[in-house]
């Protein structure tokens, strides 16, 4: 009976999790505003399913291979493409305009599936039934998994398979059934076929097998794991190879380039944000304030004390956190594979609290945290709002600027409201601060009627790195201080918070982060589109805000 009640609870949690993950699934109103997702959508709408199994394994000719569709740089795994494309074909939703929605739903399904694995893992670790259910509940409400489930990217696929791998691996360590090791390696290969970066955890698996075994098994087990992983990767990521086991040069080049982007050897605009971040401390802060939220992080810190019971999980967290945490690029999603386990420890931490009132209070806070985050999917995307406003309030043929590497506005909403009606001027703000850059920039600014920032991407990261961009930083500071011939006239945002239609005003809590300006911690905006109480997250990491809830700011020539 008790077991049945738990199963009902689990079922309910899975339903809740899935609903939270598909809530506002078309959050960008079909405008493809996530650049990585946009790229994947382009690739998936161009590739086709192979005619047969031989064609699938034929790297040179398979229509599923992105390289054969002129995508020479493709650093993700192809398994998510295959899954989503099959479903897209099944529902006849395989065009550029629809397939991303299929991808987002599948992404949500996989992340919901991760909860199920977490349930079985917690049970296997002999945690109390209540704790097991709560761990699933906490994961269902964790912010980063909810956010990433809204994107058609490879992350949720990877995390599903990596969590499954670890569950089976831990089971093998305890039970010693070779079948479990085989399955674990199989799924590890599959997770690499979603995202190769998880390869950094391979030595951990091998070392554990080495130290946990005796005699000849010390060699046989790690080798078996390695072999099955390689075979699995060969099957599910066939386009990484150009012969039976020879890696293709295109795949190697893509991985090298992606690696150079992460380490900073390859200079490109999104990396500017990372130069002012502190290794290890920055990812911890982003997990604390945004990814998990303060309560779950606090519970994790409480639970980690008992990590001695779960060695492998502890070392997995440590490895991923330290390795990714000392790279130049420390995107929140790079830490996503450890989230299920952070939450597992949070559950353990929660279990150790004896005060019932405190427990209830913490649960309410966790629910509240997820609730306010979901607000961003309740509103029309700020870039869409801004585009509508531009079409209504700015005369056609006006000159509007956009920043290189960021999206230009207005978006192409309709035949009447699109970018063709305006004269768009590109500002190369992320170029090195040379005399040539400024000559061109000044010429372009003189021609412009409006300066438009479609996100905080550059004004924030460049002013955080004044030494790198001394003149550009001064420009942004002067602009926000109204010391140039432009004045801020409008801003569009969608912050985590509570939408209160009867309120008529927006109460904004937190710093707006404008460069060189000291603003009050609490501000009232009586001219906002969605009245309510909001928590400004302008100081959050770029990738947390710029995709699904960027702030758009419009300056007009005075």
């Amino acid at each position, binding site marked *: 009976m008790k077991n049945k009640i738990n199963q009902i609870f689990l079922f309910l949690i899975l339903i809740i999790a899935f609903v939270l993950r598909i809530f506002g699934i078309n959050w960008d109103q079909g405008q493809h505003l996530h650049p990585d997702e946009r790229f994947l959508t382009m690739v998936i709408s161009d590739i086709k399913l192979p005619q047969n199994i031989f064609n699938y394994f034929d790297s040179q000719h398979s229509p599923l291979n992105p390289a054969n569709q002129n995508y020479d740089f493709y650093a993700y795994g192809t398994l998510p493409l295959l899954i989503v494309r099959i479903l897209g074909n099944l529902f006849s939703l395989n065009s550029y305009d629809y397939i991303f929605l299929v991808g987002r739903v599948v992404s949500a399904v996989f992340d919901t599936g991760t909860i199920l694995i977490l349930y079985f893992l917690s049970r296997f670790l002999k945690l109390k039934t209540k704790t097991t259910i709560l761990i699933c509940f906490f994961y269902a409400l964790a912010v980063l998994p909810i956010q990433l489930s809204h994107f058609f990217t490879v992350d949720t696929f990877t995390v599903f398979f990596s969590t499954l791998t670890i569950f089976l691996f831990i089971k093998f360590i305890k039970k010693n059934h070779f079948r479990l090791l085989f399955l674990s390696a199989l799924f590890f290969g599959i997770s690499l076929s979603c995202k190769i970066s998880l390869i950094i955890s391979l030595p951990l698996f091998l070392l554990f097998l080495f130290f946990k075994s005796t005699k000849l098994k010390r060699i046989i087990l790690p080798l078996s794991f390695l072999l099955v992983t390689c075979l699995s990767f060969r099957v599910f990521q066939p386009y990484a190879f150009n012969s039976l086991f020879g890696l293709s040069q295109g795949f190697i080049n893509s991985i090298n380039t992606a690696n150079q982007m992460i380490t*900073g050897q390859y200079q490109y605009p999104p990396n500017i944000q990372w130069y*002012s971040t502190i*290794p290890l*401390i920055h990812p911890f802060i982003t997990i604390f304030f945004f990814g998990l939220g303060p309560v779950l992080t606090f519970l994790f810190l409480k639970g980690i004390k008992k990590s001695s019971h779960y060695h492998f999980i502890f070392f997995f967290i440590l490895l991923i956190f330290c390795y990714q945490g000392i790279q130049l690029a420390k995107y929140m999603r790079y830490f996503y594979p450890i989230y299920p386990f952070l939450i597992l420890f949070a559950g353990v931490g929660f279990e150790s609290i004896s005060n019932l009132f405190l427990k209830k209070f913490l649960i309410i806070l966790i629910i509240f945290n997820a609730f306010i985050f979901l607000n961003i999917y309740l509103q029309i995307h700020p870039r869409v709002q801004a585009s509508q406003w531009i079409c209504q309030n700015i005369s056609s043929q006006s000159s509007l600027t956009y920043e290189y590497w960021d999206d230009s506005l207005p978006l192409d909403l309709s035949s009447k409201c699109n970018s063709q009606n305006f004269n768009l001027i590109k500002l190369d703000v992320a170029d*090195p601060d*040379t*005399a040539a850059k400024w000559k061109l920039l000044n010429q372009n600014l003189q021609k412009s009627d409006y300066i438009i920032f479609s996100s905080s991407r550059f004004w924030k990261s460049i002013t955080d790195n*004044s*030494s790198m961009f001394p003149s550009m930083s001064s420009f942004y500071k002067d602009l926000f201080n109204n010391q140039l011939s432009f004045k801020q006239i409008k801003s569009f945002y969608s912050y985590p918070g509570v939408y209160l239609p009867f309120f008529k005003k927006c109460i904004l809590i937190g710093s707006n982060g404008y460069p060189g300006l000291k603003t009050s911690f609490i501000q009232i905006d009586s001219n906002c589109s969605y009245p309510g109480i909001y928590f400004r997250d302008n100081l959050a990491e770029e990738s947390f805000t710029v995709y699904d809830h960027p702030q758009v700011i419009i300056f007009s020539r005075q």
Partner: protein
Amino acid sequence: MLSRLTKILPVFLLVLLTIFSRFYCLDWGNGYFFHPDENNMASAVFQMSSSSLNPHFFAYGQFPLFLTFFTTPQHQFSSIVFTLRFWSAFFSSLSIFIFYLIGLKLFKSTTSSFIFALLIIFTPGLIQLSHFGTTESILIFVFAANIYLSQKILEKLKFQFLFLAGFISGIGLATKISAAIFLLPVFLSLFLVFLKNKNLSKFFIRLFLFSVFTVLVFFIFSPYNFLDFNSFKSSMSYEIGVANGQTPIFYTRQFIGTIPYVFQFEKIFPYTNGVFILLFSFFGIFNLPKKSKNIFLVLISSIIFFLYQGQLFVKWTRFMSPIFFIFPLLSVYFIQKIKNTFLKTTLILICLLPGIYFFRIYFQPDIRIQASNWINQNIPPHSQVLSESGNVIDLPLANSKINVSNFDFYQLDQSFEQQENLKSLIKNSDYIFIPSRRVFKNQNNFYFPISQDYYQKLFSGNLNFSSLKTFSTNNSFLLNSQNAEETWSVFDNSTIRIFKKNNL
């Protein structure tokens, strides 16, 4: 008699090596003063007089300035510089003694403490800093002394330790305001004492007494920080802006795009401590004693210091100097576990190699003087030379008939005018000098495309110039000192490159 001798001899050896390694060649530079901070401090002392002790210079506190002002034999610039260097070497020597005492507390063995002190003596970074008339050696002493006194407080809390720690901390603040972080071990030890006896009122009274005494000593030895508060405040806001990168200045460009913490382990510690000690210190971590409050105090204080200083935008070598000692310390934990005497001795000797290798630069004439002599003899009179400005002192050339244009490369990328000037200078020059790594290592990247283009063309021979001669003194054993953080290789040694126009 023999046993007494075996006790005295190592101590005698340590003293001898300390004096030799710290005081030998304090007059490096052959009469030229290549260190900018040393020059700034000397200038501040030089303009002081008995009637006006206000240095009008607040990057540092007044303690080292007063100390130098009242002890310099002559009120001349060179004499002031040498006095600054003397005190630096003195405090560096004193620190070795303190480290020896810390070793005794931690290792509970005179042999291990002896090895620890020996490794400290031969730490290249500490040898170098003792030869600079700057504040680092005093600050290292303050941190070490506070750690030692905190260990004493932990052992038995006597008020004289607390007051002595207050006095030392006050001296630290009066030397440089950032020494506030060196109060940490004292706070920590008081807190640990409180955890033991749970007496909150006593904890606060001790904390109060210590703080008050510290501030009092700070005021006595650096009064103008209070009396001329506005100047101090504006100087501090400038220094803070430089430190966190919000005030862009040309000499911090090497830190653009560097990763905190990783940078220190890549560009600083392998050079200042040597690769062997760095490696052995890693192994030493696994041999640390468990549940030792003393080692906990040392490690926590050092880690917090590292986390705070390491995250700053400017990551100068000297900012890390107070924790250079941590690597020899951890290495001793590794070495003392080795039972085989031969292997142990070999490892110790290997650890000394980077220090010995570094120290040899003081036995040679300054490389810039060597280069100047060669230039004077080999470059024909009336030759046109393109060189670089921003090197504290330009190459001291006696041959005044050589026309040297010291071009400001720091403005090159931001100014069309400078870009045009450079083109005409390249066209008209017969030789190009690169007097140090300062510009080409720092501006040879994506953010300085014009500079990058210039250096890439020059080094690849596409500028119509070929390498004629390079003068270099590498100070880093098994490593290239030019790849280290800039200040490691541009003050007391440098690499000078001379290029000649093809077909000249």
